[in-house]
């Protein structure tokens, strides 16, 4: 087991730079998820840690040792690929034991270590099958088994669940998390699915356009997003944004929207009177109230435990998530007010978070 340090890493393909100086520190045994929309550089970063891509500049350390120029096999890592990359002509057992065979381990040792990994993953009965004869979830498990057999210092996962159906994905999510708990191996996991990131990670690294937007524990990111991008990316349904100008009238702040509608607020960042501002409110924090922003109901989606309502208010399309069995009809008018304790302010120009006082 080892720590992983990414220090000022840049990556360019020809003249196009895709990773613009990334710093990430991963402690020994930590489960870190790199998350971001496609093209954000997260997979490239993972492949640089694996040694499948060169580092253009900067440093990558595994267990304190600089690995920039080490070939993948010298880095003592194991990787699970998005398409599993199982060797089609080898059986499950041979797939799992392949790395040991290359290391010229004795057949007895290979067998015992494959059996051990197979037991952890419940693959004992499948060891003689070929990858073609397996279901998606079983292949996924074999790919993990191949990684476990190597007993590496670091596990790397590249979107391992994206080829599975929704139900299996939820099950495998729990399984991977449980596996990490048992083995306590440092893990770097790439996904574009923020729910995977929220549910599995010790620490999330949100990437966007080749830079790191924010690093933090899942709920930290949820509760205090550093900027508008992270606020909009983490959480589902996504956070609502209202842009307008902050006005303090008679001691109570209001956000005045473009069409003149006003959102009453309880607090506002210091010295923000008259400044353009983006207000962020999560759907579950946008409440139906006696007074507030007038909103016209669009689509109503009852999900049983809660109801998702799409509304139009002050020129913005908003989503509202309510737990009451309130069933408005399309075209109905509602009044909405944000929950005072759960309001986020972002600078209109930079999108940076500003804390209210």
């Amino acid at each position, binding site marked *: 087991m080892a720590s992983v340090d990414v220090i000022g890493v840049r990556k360019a393909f020809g003249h196009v730079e895709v990773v613009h100086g990334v710093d990430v520190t991963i402690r020994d045994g930590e489960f870190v998820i790199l998350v971001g929309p496609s093209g954000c550089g997260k997979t490239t970063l993972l492949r640089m840690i694996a040694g499948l891509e060169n580092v253009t500049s900067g440093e990558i350390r595994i267990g304190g040792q600089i690995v920039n120029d080490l070939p993948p096999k010298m880095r003592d890592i194991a*990787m699970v690929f998005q398409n599993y990359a199982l060797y089609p002509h080898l059986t499950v057992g041979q797939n799992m034991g392949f790395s040991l065979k290359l290391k010229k381990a004795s057949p007895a040792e290979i067998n015992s270590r494959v059996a051990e990994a197979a037991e952890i993953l419940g693959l004992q009965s499948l060891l003689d099958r070929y990858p073609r004869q397996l279901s998606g979830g079983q292949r996924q498990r074999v790919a993990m088994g191949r990684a476990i057999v190597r007993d590496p210092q670091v596990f790397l996962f590249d979107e391992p669940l994206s080829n599975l159906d929704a139900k299996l994905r939820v099950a495998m999510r729990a399984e991977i998390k449980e596996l990490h708990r048992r083995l306590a191996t440092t893990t770097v996991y790439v996904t574009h699915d923020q729910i995977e990131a929220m549910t599995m990670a010790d620490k999330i690294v949100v990437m966007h356009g080749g830079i790191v937007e924010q690093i933090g524990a899942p709920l930290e990111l949820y509760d205090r997003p550093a900027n508008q991008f992270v606020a909009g990316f983490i959480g589902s349904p996504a956070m609502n944004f209202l842009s307008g100008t902050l006005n303090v009238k008679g001691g109570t702040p209001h956000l005045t929207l473009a069409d003149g509608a006003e959102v009453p607020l309880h607090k506002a960042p210091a010295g923000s009177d008259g400044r353009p501002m983006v207000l962020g409110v999560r759907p579950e924090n946008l409440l139906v109230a006696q007074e507030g922003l007038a909103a016209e109901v669009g689509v109503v989606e009852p999900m049983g435990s809660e109801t998702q309502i799409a509304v139009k208010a002050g020129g913005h399309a908003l989503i509202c998530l309510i737990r009451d069995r309130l069933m408005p009809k399309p075209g109905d008018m509602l009044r909405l007010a944000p929950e005072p304790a759960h309001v986020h302010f972002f600078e209109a120009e930079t999108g940076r978070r500003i804390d209210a006082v």
Partner: protein
Amino acid sequence: MGPFLISSSFAGLHMIVLDQHPPKPLRPMAAPGAVARLVAHRDWLGFWFMLPAGLILVALLVYPLGLGVWLSFTNATIGNAGRFIGLGNYTWIFGDETFLHSIVFTLAYTLIASSIKFAVGLYLALLLNKRLPFKALIRSIILIPFVVPTVLSAIAFWWIFDAQFSIISWSLTRLGLIHHNIDFLGNPLLARACVIFANIWRGVPFVAITLLAGLQTVSPSLYEAATIDGATSWQNFRFITYPLLTPIIAVVMTFSVLFTFTDFQLIWVMTRGGPVNATHLMATLSFQRAIVGGSLGEGAAISSSMIPFLLAAILISWFGLQRRKWQQGSGA
């Protein structure tokens, strides 16, 4: 069921017409006749559908082949239909040193040319599968020998290996390495090497391009996985590329061996089987005896003697082509 419905409705129509005549007792519909049953029966249906294709095959393949084999049992010559002489031709040719020699040379020609074609083709395919500058251009250049008509390239080689005007001899003389022209196609051993070289030159593109197509079906992530698993580039080839390529290798090499074994044009244009029959393949010898020499029966016997060798090659590849265990099972 289709034909049944049609026949029953036809029967119905008949009955309506018949009804205008003095009434007859209504009978249950007659069972369809034996022929109708045969036409409509499920198990026979496939046979009927295959029949047209089968007839074309018989006309174009089986008939000439059968005629060839029949001729080999007769003493036919050009202008003379001949009569059945049993194994006469065969006993004669198997006592003929030229024929026995042509068998040996055909086998050697096939074995040497095919192995080198495989090795060079595989090497080129692996090279072209890597990131190379001007890859598309190189790929099309490699295809040229395959595109040029065989006779044309054979004439070019004939010229290159000519006793008097050979560019090789000319260059070597100019370089001061030799003082006399080399008689490439006049020396039996050299002539054999030259025709084998020409065959390799012509056959490599087919092997290279087909193997390249096979290589491109191997997912790059398999190599990445193997690299992380600790494989060197040789181990990558040995444990990933080669096993995944074997089905395609089997197909390509079957064709390559069949084409090489039955080669005719190159030899006929370059040497006509000479010098002193040194470069006769079974195909060229057969042509010479049957058409040039007029002994159709003897030529046919030589051709027919190729059949067991070709069947053996096909059988070997058939076993090689059998779906491997890892290819079975449900789809991806």
